[in-house]
Every structure is written in C-alpha cells, then in structure tokens.
C-alpha cells in the first residue's frame, strides 16, 4: 500500500492493511503539521511532489526495508496540497512477527523518505510569508 493523496490520510486503513495473524507487532508513524519548525511558527503547510517519481521512490524504499528486516507488510501514504495545523502529512505502518523489526523498518522508511523522495513542503507563516523548505 503505497499512495500519494490529496485527501485526509485515514491511518486506520494503513493499520488494517498491515495487521495480520502472522505478525504480532504493528508500528504506525504519523507525521503531523506542528506549530513550530526551526523556531518559526507555522500556520499551515503546502506539499508538492513529482508524483510518478515519488511513488517509484516510495516503492523502492519499502522494498529495501523488506530486504533489510524480516517484516510482514509495509504501508506508506503521503499527503499533498494544503494542510492545516494538526493534520497528518505522512503515515507509515509496518508489521512484523517481532517488535524490533517493525520499529526499525518503520523508522527506516521515514528516514529514507525524508532524504530522497521528491516531495517538498512550503511553510506558510502567520505574517503572510511563505517559503519552500530545501534542507542544506
């Protein structure tokens, strides 16, 4: 389950996809729009992606995670467009027979997503200014 969506992310769907009688451990990560980023208050965010490439990268990352750890299922969904405070921008879920693998795979997917997947965030500040974020 690898998706890019302009709608609200329904994390329950990721949990349902990953839960299974074979896997005793399920880890879900939600990234949500928070009040402050690097000390500056954010009012809202806009996400943009190079969609076909982003989907391809997300699939590669999840495949790689499955090759690195003994995990059952992995689900990864990223939201695009305009997001208000508190909304979910990304959700990752991993299931495994054992908890350590589920934690590691879930964390790995997030790290790789932030490093390589062509998705960009624009921070809209209360003063009306907005900036695309391009980490050094």
């Amino acid at each position, binding site marked *: 389950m690898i998706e890019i969506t302009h709608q609200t992310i329904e994390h329950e769907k990721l949990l349902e996809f990953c839960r299974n009688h074979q896997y005793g451990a399920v880890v879900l990560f939600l*990234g949500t729009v928070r009040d402050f980023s690097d000390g500056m208050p954010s009012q809202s965010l806009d*996400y*943009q*992606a*190079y969609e*076909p*490439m*982003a989907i*391809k990268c997300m699939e590669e990352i999840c495949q790689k995670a499955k090759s690195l750890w003994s995990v059952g299922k992995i689900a990864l969904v*990223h939201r695009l467009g305009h997001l208000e405070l508190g909304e979910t*921008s*990304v959700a990752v879920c991993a299931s495994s027979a054992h908890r350590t693998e589920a934690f590691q795979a879930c964390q790995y997917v*997030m790290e790789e*997503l*932030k*490093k*390589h*997947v*062509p*998705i*960009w*965030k*624009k921070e809209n500040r209360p003063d009306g200014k907005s900036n*695309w*974020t*391009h*980490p*050094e």
Partner: protein
Amino acid sequence: MPAGNRLIKIRILFFASVREIMGKEELDMDIPDECSSGELRSLLLKNHPELSKIISSSRFAINASFADWDQKICENDVIAVVPPVSGG
C-alpha cells in the same frame, strides 16, 4: 556543449522554489543530441542565471530516476530539476 549534428526535443519539470523562480511548471527545449545531464544544467543556468543558487544543491532526474551528471539525454526524455526534498 558538444556540437551535435541535430537537436532533440526534451521537457524539463520544475518543482517547489525552482518552479517559483521559473514561474512555470515545465519547459520544452531543443537541445543538442548526446547532451549529458550536466551539460543540460549548464545550458539551463546560462539561460536562467537566477537559478544558480538553487541549482547548485539540486539533483536532476531523467524519466523519474535520479541521474548522474554524465548521463546522456535522449529524444523525448523528461528531465526534472530536484531541489533538496522536504517531505515527511
């Protein structure tokens, strides 16, 4: 820039601050055949010096895969300028 025998048609996609600077989502260009990704970057910078800062930290993708700077571009390839990503 190699003096290619002919020109090929390609499309370049822009995202995030690159799109803001360019004022457009994409650009169709005719470039010399056998042009590499790095040579296209030089060509783009020559025509759009306002991109110099962001291009210096950007990667290029050819047909939705990250490309090395010496990778050759072919007719109808879609090139994306990929500035540092910030998803998550």
